[in-house]
């Protein structure tokens, strides 16, 4: 580190050198005096012989200097001085860059945390979601998760596979915990053996659930999440061995998972074991998410082949009961499509994020163009200074370096501010949590994000610095030194760079406006779709679950549900109330199966398509605002009498019987041993899977099902819907709670929200994209407007003399106005034309985000173009007016 020491002890060394030189001269003088010279003469002679003293000193010092660094520091100091000297320009530039880099850094931190970082499990690239599709099972394509695993599949896969280290199935659920505080509904995850082993995250306290918990008659055990452990047990490590009442059954706590551990993207409170009874497991029951960890070195294709190999084994090993053909599933064409767990977590969000990133990148480029324009103005006014420097011997490279150092400084300072902005906006984003963004809690500004911001700052600094640097640094000094020549007008040459920049800005702005426009049109199209319910804002929802440990008898459950609905209806202001197994767009894993229609014959190998099953109470359809197209709604009498009646959706009725009215009186059933159920009503189609998805065919059953051979069956977890003007208010919710607890005080209310919230959440992806593109589009337009304004007003100021002469020679003021406006319009038109060309290509990339509008929608394109040209004209009008008002005499005297 001697060079470092040298760097810091330099000042002392300089002093020593001067001292030494002085001593030298004195010694020489003494000698000459001793030789007989006068002192004055001797001093003079000594100096003459020594040579240029200050030069020697400087040369001596130069030896110690680290030249390139010092020149660089000089450039930095000079750059800072130049930036300070023009505070307004600097502030505008800084702000532009800060916003640009801030927005980019914020979006990058989201992209980085959500898309780029691996999942929070050890060796997470080995983790796979056991996804499979069944193209042969018609109707299934509507279900979002493909074909989930059945318990029998789990047994076969777990026992027969050759490619996985660990494999298991899981399902999110809810449970009521009692006995700790007031009754509470908690989120649970039920896991089979193999799931925790696959995720491989060790518990903080205690141990995992194990093989022993797989016994359906075995011990009842449970694990806690870190959050629940802290909340309910204050993080007490002695919690292991204690017992909690889960759904009124005591379970022993055996472990706590660490902080931040989540099931894919699911937060949970408890992990309970899934204990399938081997003796009762059949082929069907495709309701479980499969997860597995690949053995090291195994590729996904090998694993897929392995699962495909096991499918025939699965069909041979299990059955759906006597008299059924296990090989009917061959017609389903079940195909394993294993995919990385990360992809499963991310879902379809990556397209949105990349589109947003690209958009924000475009805004950054527009911002850079604006700053480049600002710097061009400044460099232009410094032309003389640069020429003088060049004349004094500064090399081209040195001048370019000086200019670049200045612009990179601007970039870095802007970047610093930008990171501050990004930090604030990321905090805001995580706090508000829009758009069902997965891994939201993991979003943060990390080293990679900071690196990105730094890179962006330097890059943008170079980018907007290079244009003026290249343009002016090499300019012929003579021309510039001649000082502002008395030319009549300024050559086109001088505007070209700025005009090109503005055209580029216009083009990029068109792309952004078109993208935003397409999202607006998509949103409009979504709004016009009838979702199958009305006035979502005044529809209060909540889920109530009645576990069989609390009320065993099925009919009693229905009576309680009925009673709650009656109490709710009695609240002042409530118009109606009803309940259903699931609300549209809630995103629950649906209940579904095939139906057989009485007036159709089915061959043995016919597998009828799968239909969505919903279980509803009388009054539900009216409450939700779902219209009945034909027939009538279910009644409570029919429910309690277990009458074999059913309702179907309009599209199902049309498919089966041609018209809705023709469906009334027809009969259908789920499986051969079920009695025929008569269709009593046909219900309007409901966009069950989201507004953008087609309405599935739905069969509406009663929530209490009677089966002569077996016990009655009741749907215990139901969503209550209440139609009321006060929906969502705290006062109303208190009344609702009182009404529920007046029936049974042990029932917790879960998922309390309005239908509007459910709807908003389901279109969140679209609205998030719309908002982001809208913000980017307006930023781009504002920047573009400033760009046009800057160029036109500069042109006007340069052409003032020319305009004065024109006016003096008799030009009309209107002509001048038109001339300037034409100039602005020309720039805008060229830019818009290029932009439309680019947008035609680029909007293809966002096709999957659009609904009900083509990526080349002419209206959107025309509107964006018209808007931008109008804005450009407006931006040119202000300087053009100034040009019109030029006083010829003043203008000619000018300069």
């Amino acid at each position, binding site marked *: 580190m*001697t060079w470092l020491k*040298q760097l810091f002890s330099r000042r002392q*060394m300089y002093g*020593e*050198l001067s*001292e*030494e*030189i002085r*001593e*030298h001269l*004195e*010694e*020489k003088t*003494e000698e000459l005096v001793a030789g007989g010279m006068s002192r004055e003469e001797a001093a003079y002679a000594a100096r003459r*012989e*020594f*040579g*240029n*003293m200050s*030069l*020697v*000193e400087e*040369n*001596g*010092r*130069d*030896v*110690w200097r680290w030249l390139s660094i010092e020149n660089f520091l000089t450039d930095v100091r000079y750059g800072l001085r130049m930036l300070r000297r023009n505070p307004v320009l600097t502030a505008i530039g800084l702000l532009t860059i800060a916003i640009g880099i801030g927005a980019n850094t914020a979006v990058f931190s989201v992209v980085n945390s959500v898309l780029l970082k691996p999942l929070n499990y050890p060796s997470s690239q080995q983790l796979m979601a056991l996804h499979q599709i069944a193209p042969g099972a018609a109707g299934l394509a509507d279900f979002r998760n493909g074909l989930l695993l059945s318990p029998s599949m789990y047994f076969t896969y777990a026992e027969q596979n050759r490619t996985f280290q660990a494999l298991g199935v899981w399902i999110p659920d809810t449970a009521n915990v009692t006995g700790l505080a007031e009754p509470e509904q908690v989120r649970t995850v039920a896991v089979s053996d193999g799931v925790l082993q696959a995720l491989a995250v060790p518990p903080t306290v205690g141990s995992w659930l194990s093989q022993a918990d797989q016994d359906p008659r075995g011990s009842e055990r449970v694990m806690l999440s870190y959050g629940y452990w802290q909340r309910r047990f204050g993080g007490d490590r002695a919690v292991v061995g204690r017992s909690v009442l889960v759904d009124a059954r005591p379970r022993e706590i055996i472990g706590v998972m660490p902080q931040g551990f989540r099931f894919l993207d699911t937060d949970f409170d408890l992990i309970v074991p899934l204990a399938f009874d081997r003796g009762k497991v059949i082929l069907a029951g495709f309701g479980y998410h499969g997860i597995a960890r690949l053995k090291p070195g195994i590729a996904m294709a090998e694993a897929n082949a392995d699962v495909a190999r096991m499918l025939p084994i699965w069909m041979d090993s299990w059955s759906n009961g006597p008299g059924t053909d296990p090989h009917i599933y061959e017609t389903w064409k079940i195909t394993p499509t294993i995919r990385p767990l990360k992809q499963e977590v991310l879902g379809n969000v990556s397209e949105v994020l990349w589109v947003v990133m690209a958009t924000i990148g475009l805004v950054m480029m527009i911002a850079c163009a604006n700053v480049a324009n600002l710097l061009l103005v400044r460099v232009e006014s410094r032309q003389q200074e640069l020429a003088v420097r060049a004349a004094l011997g500064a090399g081209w490279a040195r001048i370019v370096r000086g200019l670049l150092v200045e612009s990179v400084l601007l970039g870095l300072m802007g970047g610093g501010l930008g990171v501050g902005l990004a930090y604030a906006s990321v905090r805001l984003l995580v706090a508000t949590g829009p758009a069902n963004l997965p891994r939201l809690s993991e979003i943060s500004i990390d080293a990679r994000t900071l690196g990105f911001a730094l890179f962006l700052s330097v890059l943008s600094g170079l980018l907007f610095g290079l244009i003026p640097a290249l343009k002016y640094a090499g300019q012929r000094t003579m021309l510039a030194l001649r000082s502002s020549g008395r030319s009549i007008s300024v050559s086109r040459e001088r505007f070209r760079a700025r005009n090109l920049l503005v055209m580029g800005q216009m083009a990029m702005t068109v792309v952004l406006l078109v993208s935003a426009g397409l999202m607006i049109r998509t949103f409009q199209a979504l709004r016009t779709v009838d979702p199958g319910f009305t006035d979502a804002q005044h529809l209060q929802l909540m889920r109530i679950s009645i576990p069989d440990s609390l009320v065993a008898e099925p009919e009693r459950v229905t009576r309680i549900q009925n009673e709650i609905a009656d109490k709710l209806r009695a609240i002042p202001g409530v118009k109606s109330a009803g309940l259903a197994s699931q609300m549209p767009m809630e995103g629950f894993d649906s209940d579904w199966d095939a139906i057989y229609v009485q007036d159709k014959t089915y061959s043995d190998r016919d597998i009828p398509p799968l239909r969505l099953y919903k279980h509803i109470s009388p009054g539900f359809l009216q409450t939700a605002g779902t219209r009945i197209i034909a027939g009538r709604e279910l009644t409570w009498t029919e429910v309690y009498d277990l009458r074999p009646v059913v309702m179907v959706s309009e599209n199902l009725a049309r498919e089966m019987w041609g018209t809705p009215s023709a469906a009334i009186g027809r009969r259908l059933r789920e499986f051969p041993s079920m009695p025929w159920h008569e269709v009593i009503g046909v219900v309007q189609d409901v966009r069950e899977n989201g507004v953008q998805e087609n309405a599935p065919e739905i069969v509406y059953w009663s929530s209490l099902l009677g089966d002569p051979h077996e016990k009655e069956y009741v749907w215990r977890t139901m969503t209550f819907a209440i139609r009321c003007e006060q929906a969502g208010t705290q006062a109303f919710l208190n009344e609702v709670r009182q009404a529920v607890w007046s029936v049974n005080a042990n029932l917790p209310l879960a998922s309390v929200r309005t239908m509007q919230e459910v709807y908003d959440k389901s279109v969140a992806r679209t609205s998030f994209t719309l908002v982001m593109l809208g913000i980017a589009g307006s930023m781009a337009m504002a920047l573009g407007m400033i760009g046009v304004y800057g160029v036109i007003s500069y042109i006007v100021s340069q052409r003032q003399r020319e305009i004065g002469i024109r006016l003096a020679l008799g030009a009309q003021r209107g002509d001048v106005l038109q001339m300037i406006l034409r100039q602005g319009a020309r720039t805008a038109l060229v830019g818009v034309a290029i932009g439309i060309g680019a947008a035609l290509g680029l909007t293809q990339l966002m096709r999957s985000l659009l609904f009900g509008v083509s990526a080349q929608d002419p209206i959107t394109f025309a509107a964006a173009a018209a808007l931008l040209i109008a804005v450009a004209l407006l931006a040119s009008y202000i300087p053009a007016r100034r040009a019109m008002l030029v006083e010829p005499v003043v203008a000619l005297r000018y300069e």
Partner: protein
Amino acid sequence: MRKTVKRDLFPGALEMMILQILRRQPSHGYALLQHLKRTSHELLQIAEGSLYPALEGLLKEELLKAEWRISSTNRGVRIYRLTAAGAKHLELEVSSFERMLQGITQVLARSES
């Protein structure tokens, strides 16, 4: 009449001589210069001032070290002495210089004959 061409030293020559002198006897700048002039019999044209940047350069390379002393004439002087690295450097420089000189001499002798 043509003037004799005044010849500058080649780069590194002054440094080499400084090292050589200091190897025998540590001394301060002025004495060094006097020694140079005396031993070269005034054949070499050395601007007095050029000595100091050369000394600074050698200090930076750590071929020399310097310390302040009071001289016999009761004057503060900076005494330079050779470091081990300096001695080694000098050796290399001298041998390479001798090779060069030999080469030049041979070429000059050949073309003369």
